[in-house]
C-alpha cells in the first residue's frame, strides 16, 4: 500500500512540475489572499481625521493630546476648517475636529468648552466609532482638567497582560483562510484535473485500491500547499504575529493544512470539474474568513453566526492557531473537542473522496 501511495505521490509532484505556471499560481493564491486581506485590514485601524487647532492655550494642546490618546484616530494637523472640510468631502478623511478659539479660556473658567466635529457619516457603525472616540477623548480630558463634570469614575482590569493588536489578531484569521483556500485549490483542482483529463481511469485500472491513491494524492497536495502555507505564515509574521509562537505552532499548522487539503480532495472528487472547484473555493473563502472570528470570538457574535461557524473547520483551526501564537484559548468549546472536530472533518472528507472513487470504479449493469 505504501509503495502505491508513494508512486501516486511521485506522479502528482511530477505532474506539478509539468504544469509549473498553474502550480505556481495555485501556490501563490493563498499568499495573494493574505495580501488582499491585509489591504482590508489596513482600513480597520485608525481613522484619518483632520485636526484644526484654532486655540493657542495649554488646554487646547491638552485636548489634542487626549484625542491622540483615544486610540481611535490617525490625526493630522490642518490649517483651516475650510481645508479640513475639503479633505472630508473628498473622502481623504473620515472627519474633522476643530478645537475653536476660546477653548482654553472656557476650561480655565470651569467649562463648558466646545469641540466641533464634522463627520462624513457614510455608515452608522463607522460613524459611531468616531463619535465615541471623540467622546472618550473628551472624557479623558475632563478626568484630568474638569473632574467636576464626571461624577462617576471608571477603572479597567485586563484579563491578559498584553493586548494583541488589531492587525496581528486579524492576521491569524487571514492565515487560516489562506491555508483553507490553498488546501481547497491544491486538493480540489488536482483531483478535478484527474477526472477531467480522464487520468483517473488509469489509477482505477491499477491494482492499487482507493486508499493508497487518496493518501498519495493527499500527501502530494500537502507538500504543495505547505509551500504556500509557509510563505503565508511569513506574511502573517510580517503583519505583527509574535514570532515566539512559531515553534509551538508547527504542529497545529501542519494539522490544519492536512484537514483543509482533505476537504480540497473531497471537493475535487465530488465536483470533478476545475471550472466549478475554482469559483466555489473563492466563493467560500470570504464568508468562511468572516466565520473564523477575525475581529473577535464568534461567541460574541449572533447565536446564528456562532451556530454556523461551529459547523466549519476554520472556526476551530483559527482557535488552535491563536492558542499557539497568542497563548490564550478563545473558543467556548475545549481544545480536545476542537481537535476532534478537525479530525472528523479530515476523516469524512477522505471518506467522501473515497466514495466518489469507488462509485466510479463500481460495475454498473455489467459495464464499467
Amino acid at each position, binding site marked *: 500500500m505504501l509503495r502505491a501511495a508513494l508512486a501516486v505521490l511521485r506522479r502528482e509532484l511530477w505532474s506539478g512540475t509539468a504544469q509549473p505556471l498553474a502550480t505556481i499560481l495555485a501556490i501563490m493564491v493563498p499568499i495573494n489572499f493574505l495580501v488582499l486581506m491585509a489591504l482590508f485590514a*489596513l482600513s480597520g485601524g485608525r481613522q484619518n481625521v483632520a485636526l484644526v487647532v484654532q486655540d493657542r492655550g495649554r488646554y487646547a494642546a491638552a485636548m489634542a493630546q487626549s484625542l491622540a490618546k483615544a486610540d481611535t484616530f490617525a490625526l493630522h494637523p490642518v490649517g483651516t476648517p475650510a481645508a479640513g472640510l475639503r479633505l472630508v468631502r473628498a473622502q481623504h478623511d473620515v472627519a474633522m475636529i476643530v478645537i475653536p478659539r476660546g477653548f482654553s479660556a472656557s476650561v480655565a473658567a470651569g467649562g463648558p468648552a466646545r469641540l466641533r466635529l464634522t463627520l462624513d457619516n457614510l455608515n452608522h457603525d463607522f460613524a459611531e466609532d468616531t463619535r465615541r472616540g471623540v467622546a472618550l477623548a473628551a472624557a479623558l480630558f475632563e478626568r484630568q482638567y474638569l473632574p467636576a463634570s464626571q461624577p462617576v469614575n471608571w477603572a479597567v482590569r485586563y484579563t491578559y497582560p498584553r493586548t494583541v493588536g488589531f492587525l496581528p489578531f486579524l492576521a491569524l484569521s487571514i492565515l487560516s483562510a489562506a491555508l483553507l483556500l490553498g488546501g481547497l485549490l491544491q486538493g480540489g483542482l488536482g483531483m478535478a484535473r484527474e477526472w477531467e483529463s480522464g487520468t483517473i481511469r488509469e489509477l482505477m485500472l491499477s491494482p492499487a485500491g482507493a486508499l493508497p491513491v487518496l493518501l498519495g494524492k493527499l500527501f502530494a497536495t500537502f507538500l504543495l500547499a505547505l509551500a504556500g502555507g509557509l510563505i503565508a505564515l511569513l506574511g502573517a509574521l510580517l503583519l505583527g504575529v509574535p514570532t515566539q509562537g512559531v515553534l509551538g505552532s508547527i504542529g497545529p499548522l501542519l494539522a490544519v493544512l492536512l484537514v483543509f487539503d482533505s476537504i480540497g480532495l473531497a471537493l475535487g472528487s465530488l465536483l470533478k470539474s476545475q471550472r466549478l472547484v475554482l469559483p466555489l473555493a473563492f466563493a467560500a473563502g470570504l*464568508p468562511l474568513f468572516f466565520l473564523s472570528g477575525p475581529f473577535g470570538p464568534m461567541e460574541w457574535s449572533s447565536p446564528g*453566526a456562532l451556530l454556523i461557524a461551529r459547523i466549519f473547520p476554520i472556526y476551530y483551526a483559527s482557535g488552535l492557531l491563536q492558542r499557539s501564537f497568542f497563548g490564550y484559548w478563545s473558543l467556548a468549546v475545549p481544545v480536545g473537542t476542537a481537535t476532534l472536530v478537525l479530525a472528523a472533518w479530515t476523516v469524512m472528507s477522505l471518506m467522501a473522496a473515497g466514495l466518489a472513487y469507488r462509485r466510479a470504479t463500481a460495475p454498473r449493469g455489467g459495464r464499467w
Partner: protein
Amino acid sequence: MLRVILSVLRKDLGLFWRSPAVVAVTLLPPIILLLTLLMESAAVGSLPVALVSQGKGAPAVRATRTLAAYPGFRAASLSPGAAQTAFDRLEVAGVLTVPKNYASTLAAGARPTVQLTVRNFNADFTDDLLRDLPDALGRVPTPGLTRHKGVAIAERDLQGKDAGFLGFQMVAVLVLLLLQAGIVNAGMAAVHEWQSGTVKELLLALAPAMAILVGKVLAGVVAADLVGVVLGGLSLWAGFFGSVTPGNLLLAFLVMTLLSAVGSGIGVGLASAMRSFERLGPASMLLSFYLFFLAGGIAAVGFLPGWLRAIAEVVPNFYGMDALRGLLLYGAAPNLGQDVLVLGVWLALVLAAGPSLLHRSLTR
C-alpha cells in the same frame, strides 16, 4: 456587425445557461455573502457584557439601569457568580461592576468607581468597550449632585442620515460580484474558445474582431447583471437600502451595467493573454479581488492610508462604488457625472485594447 455581435452573444449566453452548475456558481457567492453579512450585522456595534450591581439604594439602581440600557452594550444583569461563569464560558466580553459603596460615595460628594473587567483578546473590541464606558457613565443620572458641564461636542454630519451597516456593505459586495461575475464569466467564455480550438475559426471569419469582442463583453454583462439584479433586488426587498426612488434605481442599474462591461472587457482581455483555464481561473479571481480591495473593499476610503487612497482613485470600481452608494443609500450621487465618465473611459480603454489582444494571441 450587429448580426455578428448577436451571434456571439447568443453563443456565449447559451454556454452559460446550458451549465446549471456555472449559473449556480455565479449566483451562489452573492447569496452566501448576503447570509454571512446578515449574521454579522446582528452583532455589529454592541458587545455582550455582564452587569453586576453590588450597590444598594436608588443611585446604584439608576446606574445599573442606565448601563443596562446603553446601546453600545448587550448587557445582562447577573449575580457576581453568574457573571463570573458567563465570563469564564466566553459568553460575555467583559463584566461591569457597580460597587457596594456607590451610593455612599456619591452621598459623600466623592466619585465612585465602576469597574470593567475585560477579556482583552485584541485591541479592536477592547478599545470599543473602553470607548463605550465613559460615554455610558456620562449618561448615568446623579440627582442632587451639581454636575458641571465639561466638553460639549457640536456635531455636523455630511450625510442626511447614517447608512445602515448592511446596506453599506451590500453595495461593496454588489460591486465585487459585478466585477467578479464580469471578469470570470466573460473570461471563461473566451478561454473556452482557445481550449476547444474554435478561436481560429472565430478570428479567421470575415467578422470584425471588434464585433466578436463586443458580443463576448455583452454576454459577460448579461451574466453579471443577472447577479447584480438578484443581489440588489434581495437587498432592496430586505430594506437594506431604505427607500430608493425609481429614477435612482434606473441610474443604479446603468452604473451596474457599466461596471459589468468594464469587468467583462477585462475578463476577455485576460483570457486572450492567458488562453488556458488553469491560468485564467486563479488570475481572474485574484484580479477581481485586488481591484476590490485596492478600491477600499468594504470600508470607507477615508479609513485607508494615503498610498492606498491614491491607488483607489485610479481603480474603476472605486467610482462604481461611489455612484452606487450615493444612489442607493444617500438619495443622491453628487459625483455621478465624474463616476460615469471614469467608468466610460475605462470601458473605452478595455475595448480599444481587446481586438489587438485577440489577434496577437492568435498569431503567437
